[in-house]
C-alpha cells in the first residue's frame, strides 16, 4: 500500500461523487435528491483542496472551495423553499409525481 498522496484523495472524491450522483438519480424524495447534490459539491471541494495542497501550492483551491460552500448554503435554502412549495401544491415531494408546470 503506497503512502497517502494526491491519488487517494482523488479516488475518495470520485467515490463520494458517484454516491451523491446515485442519490440524485435513484431517489424519489426531493429532499434526498438535495442531499445528494450537497454530497457532490463536497466531493468537488475535496478535489479543489487536494489540488491546492499537492499541485498548485497557494490557496486558490481553498478559496474556490470557500465560495462553493457559501453558494451551496444559499442553494440549499432556496431549493428547500421550492420543495416546500411543491409540497404545498401537490401534497407530496416525490419528484416523479411533480410533473405539472401549471401553477
Amino acid at each position: 500500500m503506497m503512502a497517502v498522496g494526491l491519488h487517494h484523495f482523488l479516488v475518495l472524491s470520485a467515490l463520494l461523487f458517484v454516491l451523491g450522483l446515485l442519490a440524485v438519480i435513484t431517489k424519489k424524495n426531493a429532499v434526498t435528491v438535495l442531499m445528494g447534490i450537497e454530497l457532490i459539491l463536497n466531493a468537488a471541494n475535496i478535489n479543489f483542496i487536494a489540488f491546492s495542497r499537492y499541485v498548485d501550492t497557494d490557496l486558490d483551491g481553498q478559496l474556490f472551495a470557500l465560495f462553493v460552500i457559501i453558494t451551496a448554503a444559499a442553494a440549499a435554502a432556496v431549493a428547500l423553499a421550492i420543495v416546500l412549495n411543491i409540497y404545498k401544491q401537490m401534497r407530496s415531494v416525490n419528484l416523479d409525481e411533480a410533473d405539472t408546470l401549471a401553477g
Partner: protein
Amino acid sequence: MLLHFAAPFIFVIVAAAFIALNLLISRLLQPRVPSAGKTTTYECGEIPIGSSWVQFNIRFYVITLIFVIFDVEIVFLLPWAVVFKDLGWFAFVEVVIFITILLVGLAYAWRKGDLEWDKPETGKFAREAAPQLFEEVGMETRKPVQEVTL
C-alpha cells in the same frame, strides 16, 4: 498543525467511550422490568393519539433559513476580522458595504414579520370568556384586567 486538530478528535472518541462505559455499568446494575405501561409514549397519563411525527410550523424553517445566511456571513467576516488591523480603511469600507447589503435582508424579514412568533393575547380570557362564566355562576361581572404590555 495536525496535532492541534488531533486533540479534539481524540476527545470526541474518549467522550463517546466514557458514555458507553457508563451506560454499560448502568445496564449491569439496573433492574429491567419492561411493561406495556412503562414503554408507552408519555402523554400525561393519557393514551397517546397518533404518532407525533407530524407536520411543523413553517416559522421554524424560516428562522433556520435566516440563521444559515447570517452564519455564512460570520464565516466570511472572520478572516476579515483577523487581518483588519493590517488593512485599515479600505477593508472597513468593503465590509460595511457587505454587511449593509445583508442588513437589507434582515430588515426585509423584520418588516414582513418573519421574526415574529405568535403572541398570546393578554387579557383575552378576562375580556371574553370570564364575564360569561361569572354570569353563569351568578356572580357580579368584574372589569377586565388591565392589559400588560411588554
